[in-house]
């Protein structure tokens, strides 16, 4: 990487960090920006409540990207969702279940579940088997989730992470069992599959809006704002570079 690009990246990171801190301040010090309604999240909140009432299980799957891989950001979003969903439904007869296709993600999901139970003073209800590795290859991971979809009285699947085409197997099982599915992935091929096979797919960067819409913390809403600002910056930079290129100034 050239020194110019390194410095540019560092400047963008520093500006983003500053904006993140500023926008995460309490709302009274600045005007509050509302989140645009996304039907998938309204439906998710409704399904969460229903599952607690009916005693059915929620299944959150985190993908198979390792924490050391560049595609792990989607799994981190999934862990945030897991924390919030567990907090809401930990008192249910059938607490949520997290599956993953990579070892470090499994341990992180167990750690997240344990932390929520500890904070709710219900550590005795914590079961490490609710954070499971279902397979270490993409297909074995998908195949390992099928018994959960069919046999564990799951009413909603939250599919948040990095996948390949194999995620279609879980989506099909969910449709057959008439379970709600909210799905988001950073992989283009998985997004295409999820669009065709799930009731509520999230496209592109909507994946990173999940923690904000689940009301995890002000930092997540601030993060969405910064993401929007960076997107506008990118759009302006792209248009500007195209115009400069046309006139031969770049």
């Amino acid at each position, binding site marked *: *990487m050239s*020194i110019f690009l*390194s410095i540019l990246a*560092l400047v*963008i*990171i520093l500006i*983003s*960090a500053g904006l*993140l801190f500023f926008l995460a301040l309490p709302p009274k010090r600045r005007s509050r920006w509302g989140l645009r309604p996304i039907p998938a999240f309204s439906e998710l909140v409704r399904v969460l409540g229903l599952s607690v009432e009916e005693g059915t299980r929620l299944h959150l799957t985190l993908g198979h990207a*390792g*924490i*050391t891989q*560049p595609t792990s*950001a989607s799994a*981190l979003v999934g862990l*945030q969702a897991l*924390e919030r969903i567990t907090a809401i439904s930990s008192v249910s007869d059938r607490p949520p279940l997290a599956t993953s296709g*990579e*070892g*470090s993600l*499994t*341990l*992180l999901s167990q*750690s997240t579940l*344990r*932390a929520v139970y500890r904070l709710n003073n219900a550590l005795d209800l914590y079961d490490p*088997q609710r954070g*499971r*590795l279902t397979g*270490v290859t993409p297909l074995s991971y*998908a195949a390992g989730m099928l*018994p959960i979809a069919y*046999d564990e009285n799951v009413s909603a699947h939250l599919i948040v992470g990095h996948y390949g*085409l*194999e995620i*279609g*197997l879980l989506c*099909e099982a969910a*449709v057959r069992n008439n379970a709600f599915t909210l799905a988001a992935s*950073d992989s*283009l091929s998985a*997004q295409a*599959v999820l*669009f*065709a*096979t*799930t*009731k509520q797919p999230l*496209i*592109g*960067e909507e*994946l*990173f809006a999940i923690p904000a819409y689940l009301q*995890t*913390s002000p*930092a*997540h809403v601030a*993060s969405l704002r910064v*993401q929007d600002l960076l997107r506008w910056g*990118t759009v302006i930079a792209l248009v500007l570079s195209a115009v400069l290129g046309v006139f031969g100034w770049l």
Partner: protein
Amino acid sequence: MVMRSPVATAIAIGVGLIVLLGYLLPLPVLDPIRRLFLDWSIILAAVAGLVAILNLFKAHWRKISSSRERDYYSLFFILGFILTAALGLLFGPTDERVRPLIMSIQLPVEASLVGLLTITFVVSAVRLFALRRSWMSGIFLASTIVFLLAGSGVFLTSGTSQVIKEVLAALNILPAAGARGILLGIALGSVLTGLRVLLGMDRPYSE
């Protein structure tokens, strides 16, 4: 995030900053430290993988030993795991006798799953409108058919006119442009997610 663990948070932030700065700034002092941390993380991830596999073994063991919801399919997992682990430990995973043995089981099973997946996609395409009635679904289906035909090469015969070739070339740019737009959004989201972890706002590692 309500979880608090100051020591783990301080370590995560410190290590994260060193790795980031070591990547962005050409300082000779940072590069070896960054590489060392990355090596450690890979070793830790491998250990985590081992722990998770043992956890998976335990889950299946519990299923076959459960008196209420006994699952005999788990027996296949237990036997497969023991056999693979024993052969791998005795002869090594790259042994010429062990590798074909494992592959001759794993590959047909995975090929069957891919076959099943193909049928699933066809069924899903047919069922798309029942699942979600919207103009997006219509565009999705139409573009799938158009790009399947365009990608199949059916239009690229020796007699294809230059106009059709130009149209196909223009059509092929559309998915690339859309993909880049989506990937830019994903990249920005990933940067912000990483930044939240780096600033200690998200702590997936702490209890």
